[in-house]
């Protein structure tokens, strides 16, 4: 079972991101469960959402405390709460930021992870470009498809169109596609670095 934890703030579409991912997994023929760690939070308050994906029926209802994938939609949370708590040592991390991991000051948290499992990329910029709004969930899901390879980009697009029919859905799928390409390029480069390092 693959467990994903999303971190963001109220109003950024974090809950929707988890829901969309579950819908994408469902259209991929998998079992999926998505739910928020809901509070009485207002816009801007830190919050989480969870998604589980499996080949068999998912029964558990507990919160995701040991995620395989972390999707950090708001980088301002990085040094405020323990985002990396319970992250699997071979897990994946996606961060919505224009800064590098060094600039974000989080290299220590990611030491055990393979460099091609981690990517900080400007998801909000992609959303601003395609949607004119900084709701970065769709590009992060495109990035998820690229970095994990565990879900088809086409399924992400299907889920987005299903939830947001019409122009909003099209703009979101365009943002997801561009994010997919961006992250694919990034991890290919990282794999090259890895390969080079091993060769030496």
């Amino acid at each position: 079972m693959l467990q994903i934890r999303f971190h963001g703030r109220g109003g950024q579409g974090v809950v929707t991101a988890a829901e969309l991912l579950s819908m994408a997994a469902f259209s991929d023929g998998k079992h999926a469960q998505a739910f928020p760690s809901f509070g009485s939070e207002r816009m801007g308050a830190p919050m989480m959402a969870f998604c589980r994906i499996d080949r068999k029926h998912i029964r558990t209802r507990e919160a995701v405390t040991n995620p395989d994938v972390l999707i950090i939609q708001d980088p301002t949370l990085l040094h405020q709460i323990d985002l990396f708590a319970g992250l699997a040592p071979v897990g994946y991390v996606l961060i919505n930021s224009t800064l590098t991991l060094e600039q974000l000051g989080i290299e220590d948290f990611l030491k055990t992870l393979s460099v091609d499992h981690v990517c900080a990329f400007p998801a909000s910029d992609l959303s601003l470009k395609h949607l004119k709004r900084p709701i970065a969930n769709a590009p992060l899901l495109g990035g998820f498809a690229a970095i994990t390879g565990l879900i088809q980009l086409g399924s992400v697009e299907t889920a987005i169109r299903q939830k947001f029919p019409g122009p909003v859905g099209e703009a979101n799928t365009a943002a997801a596609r561009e994010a997919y390409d961006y992250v694919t390029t990034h991890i290919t480069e990282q794999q090259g670095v890895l390969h080079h390092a091993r060769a030496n």
Partner: protein
Amino acid sequence: MRVQIEGSQAVADAVALCRPEVIAAYPISPQTHIVERLSRKVKQGDVGRCQFLNVESELGALSALIGASAAGARIYTATTSQGLLFMAEAVYNAAGLGLPIVMTIANRAIGAPINIWNDHSDSMALRDAGWIQLFAEDNQEAVDLHIQAFRLAEDLSCPVMVCMDGYILTHAYEPVDLPDQTLVDDFLPPFNPVQMLDPDDPISIGAMVGPEAFTEVRYLSHRQHLRALELIPDLIGVFDRHLHRLSGGLYSLYLMGDADIAVIALGSVNGTIKDAIDELRNEGIAVGCVKIGCYRPFPMQQLRAELEGVTRVIVVEKDLAVGMGGIVSADVQMALQGLQIPVHTVIAGLGGRSISKSSLKRMIQDARAERLSEPHFLDLNWTAINEELARGQDTRRAGPVAERLLRVIDARGARLSEGGTDVDSTYQVLPDRHLHRRNRLLDEATQAVQSRMDRMNSLNSGHRACQGCGEALGARYAVDAAMRASHNQLIAINATGCLEVFSSPYPESSWQIPWMHSLFGNAPAVASGVAAALRAKGRDEVKVIVQGGDGATVDIGLGCLSGMFERNDDVLYLCYDNEAYMNTGIQRSGSTPPFARTNTTQIVGDHPGNLLGTGKNLPHIAMAHGIPYVGTASVADLHDLEEKVTRAMGLQGARYIHIHVPCPLGWGSEPAHTIQVARLAVESGLFPLFEAEFGKVIRSTPMRHKVPVERYLELQTRFKHLFGPPPDTEAIASIQALADHNIATYGLLG
């Protein structure tokens, strides 16, 4: 059709498939998504001639349905927690009248301390009210149980609660198979009431029964429930024949064939329990579980037969009988009376604490080793408990225990380290900022309280309101002015709502004044009590205010408010009107303006948005009580607002101020436009500023210039549909007519 869908939406779709004729609902988290979707479906015309009533309280919701059911309609509502308790009298009444009402309970804890997360305290509190109670393990079962519930209710003439875990199920996306309409129609024939209000066959319903027959009436209710114990297992087969799925039943077993240990639970935690059992089975421990699907009636004989072979029973329950232990486990122990089987009570998942597989495994292993206390509280934070108990030995000072407990937990960082608790937000309260401004043009007497360095800042910064929150601003303006007028001798009572939620929770509070929250609908009465106690203690210098949003004021709390008014209790009531239930996620209130989009007045159907000609004018209702002072104010006019609060504070008796406060989230306006939007409401005449004494308007604040209502409406996406394409000129004209009426009535143009 199998779809990936949110639990609430799936249940709403299932209810619609059952062809209800009247739905009445009052918003409360986490029930809202269910009724929002149903309101949309009804408005779209997807549910036949079904009527959807946005009522003023939960008592109103169930009462409306009692009437509708007695008039022969198939009916539905959903609620939870405080809402279920608020309708408690009607809950018993519906059962006593034998009305086949189906109600979803999106299970949630009961306060105080207020808590919106899941446990089963609400359903348990009303377990003996005469309703059948079914509990769903997952959203597929929730869908199926609703369809079964209508049939069961109508076959037995008995109301049914379908209980599903709040958030855990209501807000979870997972695969659900939604049946076709024809299959549901085959399973569920049209409602044929046993008795109904009908001129063709006049009967009296609900008359008194004396001691000579009351016991017999109750016995027959009990018999009806015993019949349900026979009907419910049969329904599994009937449902399967029509809808091709095995679902429902009194209980279900998992790996119980050779089990030594049986775990018993209700609801969604059974999924996690099964995962834990699978892992323990791999370790050679013979454990199974019994999911109780029907809690009332309680399948006592059936459970006894299933459990006779085990050596140990563990009941995991999301509720607590304070001073006693488990509620479900007491029932289980009664079922096992005389058998030498130890029954452990485990209290778990209270107030939304996540129940983890690892904790459940440890619990089962501890039970085997006789290490469980009785009752056992799963994942209890003993550090915090012991610290608080030790502290309590040193002081007699009473008060809410929750705040101190939270301080201990925050100090110890236990939120992260405790097995069962989630990662939670941490935050910093910003230091109080004093804005120094010089060269003021106004003399000291006419300066705004807000402009003064020595103002109280009663609602301190660092709270959790959204950006651009009009209510936060209005509350600070009003309370600071009230503090100044009372020489800082002020006590505030707060109804449930956004203001209450964003200014707390424990251990933080943004209030620099004595402040208390009790319930949603009772704040004016609580304030009356505070005022009475102050009088009894001779503390006349201390003044009392109440704060509530429009929902608390014009809807659910109106009865208590009217009582406070007519007794002329010495209390100032401040209503912050943002024109809908924003705390629960933007549902219509009695203060929502015509045509506005909310989640229960969506922009579908022939009359998109809220209906013209509905809603109430609370300042006028207040005036009709003849109280000493009624005023209206806006966050856009600080001086006017402060003057009114100051004037009201100078008077004795019941006083009321209605303050217009934009909500960027609910109105779809830019956070930066809050003041502009509020000002345009005043300048267009839609929100007239006036004052009344003893029922008569004595003064109105003239408008500087009149602006067309479009200027106000176009800044808010809740009115976007009026601007087309094509524009709804008729609707805009009728809103303009309302504004013109106000301008004429209050002489706003001088």
